[in-house]
């Protein structure tokens, strides 16, 4: 599994959230396949040189989201894709992400069309990756 975790300190993002995001991106991008096992909490903690509880919390959040599932005695695995969020929650998350995007690019001077084109390309990449892996 060519998944490389890395964390940075001194960022507004807490460490656990960085792990969560990296796992999410990895799953979304197909780097992590459903059913693949992730490193144990202790192993990842020692690898990243962070507190194991931080890793545990990240895994907990991901499990709560439905991205991962814990099998007692065996470890943590990538869950089969399914939605755990209620539709309102999904919508809220999408809106938040889009708002962030809009804020970020507002001052860059791109036209709406240029932005949308780029957005399409990224979404394609995501889906294409998934297709490839399937």
């Amino acid at each position, binding site marked *: 599994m060519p998944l490389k975790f890395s964390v940075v*300190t*001194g960022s507004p993002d*807490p460490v656990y959230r960085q792990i969560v995001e990296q796992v999410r991106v990895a799953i979304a991008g197909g780097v992590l396949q459903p059913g693949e096992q992730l490193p144990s909490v202790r192993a990842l903690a020692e690898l990243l040189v962070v507190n194991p509880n931080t890793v545990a919390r990240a895994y907990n959040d991901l499990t709560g989201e439905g991205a991962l599932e814990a099998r007692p005695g065996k470890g943590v695995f990538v869950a089969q894709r399914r939605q755990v969020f209620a539709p309102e929650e999904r919508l809220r998350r999408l809106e938040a992400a889009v708002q962030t995007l809009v804020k970020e690019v507002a001052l860059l001077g791109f036209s709406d069309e240029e932005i949308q084109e780029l957005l399409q390309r990224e979404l394609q990449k995501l889906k294409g990756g998934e297709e490839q892996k399937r």
Partner: protein
Amino acid sequence: MSDYVIETHGLTRYYGGKCVVDTLDLKVPRGSIFGFLGRNGAGKSTTIRMLLGLVEPTRGSATILGHDCQNLPPVARERIGYLAEGHHVYGWMTVGECGRFQSSFYKHWNQSIFDGVVDHFNLDRKAKAGDLSRGQRAGLCLAMTMAPEPELLILDDPALGLDPVARRSLLQSMIYVTRRSDRTILFSSHLLAEVERVADYVAVLDYGVLRASCPLEMFRERVRQFSLRFDGVTPQLPGIPGLLQAFRAAGEISLTIANYDARSEELLRSLQPVAFEEVPLSLEDAFISYLGERGEKSFFLDQAPEKPEALETVAVVDEEKLP
């Protein structure tokens, strides 16, 4: 086994007329990695020395592993590892001799841990301890402290003077220690990057007074920064509870607030800003705001510089505000 390995009750220490530790009530839970933060001279080292019975408190008491700190018997000292800042060793001893010397005092000594740490830091067993570099000496001290596998490890500014590689090794060792769930680490540090990595809990000492003692995440969540934009002149600020710092620039005020809640938000919105945004803070920025000089600052060069005003702080009376 009780929940806390260290408990202090009103621990106070004066040097001359100056109070360096003021009525400290600290609890360190078993099995945690506990970061002890504060500015230089805030009283962290003094507290640690009082905990180990090396300095007598002026008032108050403390227990460590259930024993009174002022009368630690040898059996208690066997279970506590202490790494003082400065990494003291006897310079004329070789690395190997240091290990043998230390091991003769402890009933339980895990030589493989000692060897492991020494090898990890690449120390020559025949080198004299006085000839080692700062980082290597730190590794040697760490090896000597960890080999008896103490239940409680107290590290006083362990990364002081260490290069990044040595610091990383130190952190790895700390995480290694927590393999056993009953092992606790109390460490004081200025390097927030390291604290962010390994600490479960933090306590913040501000000139002898304990201002925070909570899980690390709680600290991050409770210290927040907001940016308010205004048309024209920025208004005077009302008394906002928990206000740490305010920075006023042209048409903008940036506020850092602790224990932010609905009432604080209401107060901020009552100023009627044009824009109201939260600025995400890194742990370091949060910490600096928390311990920095309280008050309003301005660097507006065009206008006559305003003296930093002491902001109206609201004395908290109601306990409900506190968690």
